[in-house]
């Protein structure tokens, strides 16, 4: 287990996680990128950083009886947990955070 002084600072871990999400969604307009949860694994010396963001999605909404089908845009929020190595500061992986 690294001492707090030896490990990547929390702010840098969050920045690395947000940059990683942006990189993976390059070209997509991500909104409200927020730190939602953060945990430090003493066992593996990794930061587990959960980032939330919204992206505009097109969703078909049909009114089956009277009105014709219409399309509406709605925002849905996504949550991803990025694992950041606390020694190198680089992202190891990203997974969906189901909540």
């Amino acid at each position, binding site marked *: *287990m690294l*001492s*707090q*002084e030896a490990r990547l*600072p*929390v*702010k840098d871990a*969050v920045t690395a996680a947000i940059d990683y999400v942006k990189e993976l969604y390059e070209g997509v307009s991500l909104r409200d990128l*927020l*730190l*939602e*949860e*953060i*945990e*430090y694994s*003493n066992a593996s010396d990794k930061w587990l950083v*959960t980032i*939330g963001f919204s992206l505009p999605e097109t969703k078909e909404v049909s009114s089956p009886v009277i009105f014709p089908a219409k399309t509406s845009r709605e925002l849905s929020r996504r*949550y991803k947990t990025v694992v950041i190595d606390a020694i190198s500061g680089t992202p190891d992986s990203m997974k969906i*955070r189901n*909540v």
Partner: protein
Amino acid sequence: MCSATVNIQVSSELLLDTNLLLLLFIGGKDTSLISKAKTLSAYTEEDYELLQEFANLNQFTGLLTTPHIITEVSNLLGKERDDIKRVGREAVVEFLARCNERLDSSAELASKPEFNRLGITDTAIALAANSTVFVLTADLPLYLHCSRSGLNVENFNHVRQGSWS
């Protein structure tokens, strides 16, 4: 608006989730112990100061807790080295002397639909949260549950991130 302030509609008691209460207890005794506490790995002295600022700026009418939160805090303190354990337990005693405590039976909590998803401590928090209680948490499932239920809640991680910019 300062990042540590929130819109509180009515006079509210502040209810802190387990990890934030632990941060308050250990940091309140000696901020240099925060970096040495195994159970506060994700927090810094700056976070303690921000938490204090949040509590002070928002003029809460008092503090509220539950036996489940205090049990979790006590169990986490049990994992710390002796000096942190000692000051943390002193802080628990001082805190309990000046806060209100809400007790719901375990049977009632376990009967709630959110129990399966949130567990007993967070179900107790969700049940305690109402128009006169403001919940501050760093736990995403609890935050989302309270937020989607229209309860007064803030994610401390949003407050932290706001303070960095």
